[in-house]
């Protein structure tokens, strides 16, 4: 079995879901003839035709609105944001219309909005963002952010089959940098379930997306010093898997949260609140976090490297926490 990249895994999920269910359609800018800015949807048009693979004008509100309309008919549109940063252009449509439909008037919106996110590829302030927390703060949405090819495929399939609007973040740094063998048969990964990537007893490091790999490298480095870190990949940010988080914290009694999103209002704050509410007596040290800076994502490589959490930052924070 050949190894596939995360990008290829996402494409496979799209192909297989569209083959499985004719209600699945794709809408987005340049996704048809061109195959998408990152070529995630390459080949979809040739296979499924222009009725199901719709090249859209540069109108994010129009795209998401139209996809929402299609979903009211029982279709399952998968919308591509060329870069997830542009989801800001349709913020109202997503947070006020799509997210609230089921709660207010019982209209489920089975749609997926997916797109490349995250930094590390020198995309600059408008092509590197991690805007997940705007949507984690929006009841009615589900927010998924995978870190492996296996999870990306399985979670995208789950997202397409979900009856709710799911925002699917694809870290573009991982698109072609990670590879793994995928099962030949159909599989899904459940939304709302975190996973323990590495067992450890001295502290828990919660993270997601590209930083999962950074944190795993940091954990190896820590192991050489005798610090065994347990690494938990959240995979889904909304709904959060409280159970896995709390189980791990109760086991290691120390918690470090690492994310690529900016610090203030990042998921680390919410997790810290949950742990304080539910497992305060189990903590042996204050909850620590390693996050991006509270700035826009800068463009120049040295600036971006400073902006993003690095392995050394994680190691230093973990070391400090373990010794507390």
């Amino acid at each position, binding site marked *: 079995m050949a190894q596939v990249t995360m990008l290829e895994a996402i494409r496979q999920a799209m192909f297989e879901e569209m083959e499985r269910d*004719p209600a699945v*359609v794709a809408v987005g800018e340049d996704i048809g003839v061109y*195959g998408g800015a990152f070529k995630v949807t390459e080949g979809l*048009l*040739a*296979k*499924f*035709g222009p*009725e*199901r693979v*719709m090249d*859209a*004008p540069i*109108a994010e*509100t*129009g*795209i*998401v*609105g*139209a*996809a*929402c*309309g*299609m*979903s*009211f*008919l*029982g*279709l*399952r549109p998968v919308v591509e944001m060329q870069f997830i940063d542009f989801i800001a252009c349709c913020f*109202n*449509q997503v947070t006020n*219309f799509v997210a609230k439909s*089921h*709660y*207010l*008037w*019982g*209209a*489920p919106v089975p749609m997926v909005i997916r797109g490349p996110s995250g930094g590390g590829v020198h995309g600059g302030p408008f092509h590197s963002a991690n805007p997940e927390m705007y949507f984690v703060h929006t009841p*009615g949405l*589900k927010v998924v952010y995978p870190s492996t090819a296996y999870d990306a495929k399985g979670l995208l399939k789950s997202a397409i089959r979900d*009856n*709710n609007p799911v925002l699917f973040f694809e870290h573009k740094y991982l698109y072609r940098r990670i590879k793994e063998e995928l099962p030949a048969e159909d599989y899904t990964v459940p939304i709302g379930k975190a996973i323990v990537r590495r067992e450890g007893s001295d502290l828990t490091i919660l993270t997601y997306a590209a930083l999962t790999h950074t944190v795993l490298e940091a954990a190896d480095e820590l192991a050489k010093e005798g610090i065994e870190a347990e690494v938990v990949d959240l995979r889904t940010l909304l709904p959060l898997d409280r159970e896995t988080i709390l189980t791990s914290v*109760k086991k290691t*009694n120390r918690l470090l949260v690492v994310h690529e999103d900016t610090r203030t209002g990042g998921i680390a704050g919410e997790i810290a609140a949950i742990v304080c509410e539910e497992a305060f*007596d*189990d*903590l*042996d*040290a204050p909850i620590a976090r390693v996050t991006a800076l509270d700035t826009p994502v800068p463009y120049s*490589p*040295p600036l971006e*490297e400073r902006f*993003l959490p*690095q*392995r*050394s*930052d994680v190691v230093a924070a973990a070391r400090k926490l373990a010794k*507390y």
Partner: protein
Amino acid sequence: MNEVLIEGRNGVTAVGAEVPSNARAEGLTKDQQLNLYYFMKLNREVEAAMERLFKQNKIVGGLYASLGQEAISVGTASALSPGDWVAPMIRNIGALLTRGVPPRDIFTQHMARYTSPTKGKDGTSHFGDLKGRHIVSPISMLGDLIPVMAGVGIGARYLGQKIVTMTWIGDGGSSTGAFHEGLMFAAMHHAPMVLIVENNQWAYSTPVNRQTGVRDLADRAQGYGIEGVIVDGNDIREVYRVTKAAVDRARSGGGPVLIEAKTMRMRGHAQHDSADYVPKEMLAYWKERDPLPRYEKYLTESGLWDARKKAEIDARIERLVREDREFAENSPFPPPGLAEEGVYCDGCHTIEAEWKRDKGQLALAGGYPAVHQVQDYGEIRIKVAASAPAVTPAVAAAVTARAEDLELSEEMMAAVPNGKVPTAEETALRVPFGRGPKDKAFRDEQAAKTYSRGGSGKTYHQNKPSQPPSKLPPKVFTKPFTKPFTKPFNKPVHQQQGASFQKGPNQKPGNAPRKNFVKHPAGKPGRT
């Protein structure tokens, strides 16, 4: 666009789409014509009842009236078939009623009762009916329904359903970005959508001429390459006729149509607004054109009813409004626990598309060429009316002026009066090569860069100039800032003399801040 003049019935001239010849002949039966009256009158009576409820403080939130605009809601919605989809806005209670929504739903919604369609989760006419009447609920952000209804139309076509979608927007809402994106999306996809722009002259307190540069909002249709029609919104027969033509056109694949219905908001933006900013004469002008008496007059003059029939219909309406109002008033408020329910669909709805075409056909689909068919090469075409016998000096001057704006070459300008269009070769731009990905020097330069991620200790090459980058001497602050604050800070109120604040129970002198975290000796969970 085939522009024809449509003779208006009441002094309003509509310019726009060519209405199919059978549209004029499109006759309504006597009962259908009486139905138009029934729903218009019901619309008005429901709102009159709600106004009374509002004054009795029984409406929980705001109340938005469509007084004077009933002909639009009822006339447009009447032109649809039962399978069609609608997305009414806040002043389209008439459209809801016409689609079969009972007045009780509207009363209970406004009164926030458990028996309302949203069970009290939203108010006003913010509710829908996905499966039954195909009604999409509005939200308060204007214009959002337009892309949604474009999508319903596009999706329905894919499923093989021959439906039309209709939504409404006001003159105010037509300023939003969603209006533009939605209409553009619908136009590009040739969606079977009819958009009713209710120009009621006021967006809250702002008149149309303070909102936009166009006088007639129907003109906007041209910018999207779709048909735009103007209709007297206070003449229900005209509204119906024009809408029916648009609906038929959309259903037969003719693409979206924008209908601007001219009307007047006869009340304030909402009940709280006395609308003193509206000139009295303007209200008087439109009062004379009240759609209800106008239609009543027509029914009488045409012999479609008599006083007895009218009384019979009115009594039916009065009874229905009374019963449904009483139902709403006697309905309970929702249980508080409901607030926590229904954020997500956890299998409570079965989602299944209604296919009207062979799905097997789709499974066989394949081998689509992944290329775009371009219409032309984008050459500049000077639009000169085909019917014009010759280019008049005035037109030629205008064309020349336009050509100057575009900085056309002399040859192209010379070609203009003859209507000759330059070929693609003549107008092709030359794109200089270099510094692109194919430039070897550029590639080498890129390859030499060793940027990496991961905090691996690699350092970035920093230019260290041999001399300071700036010739300005470095700033040195030699003199310490010693100016003292002359004005003492005021003590907080509770520390001032004579203050009678008591310390709270947690501010006892002995209650020192405790150390939050104490390391457990054995590393076990727990805090000492």
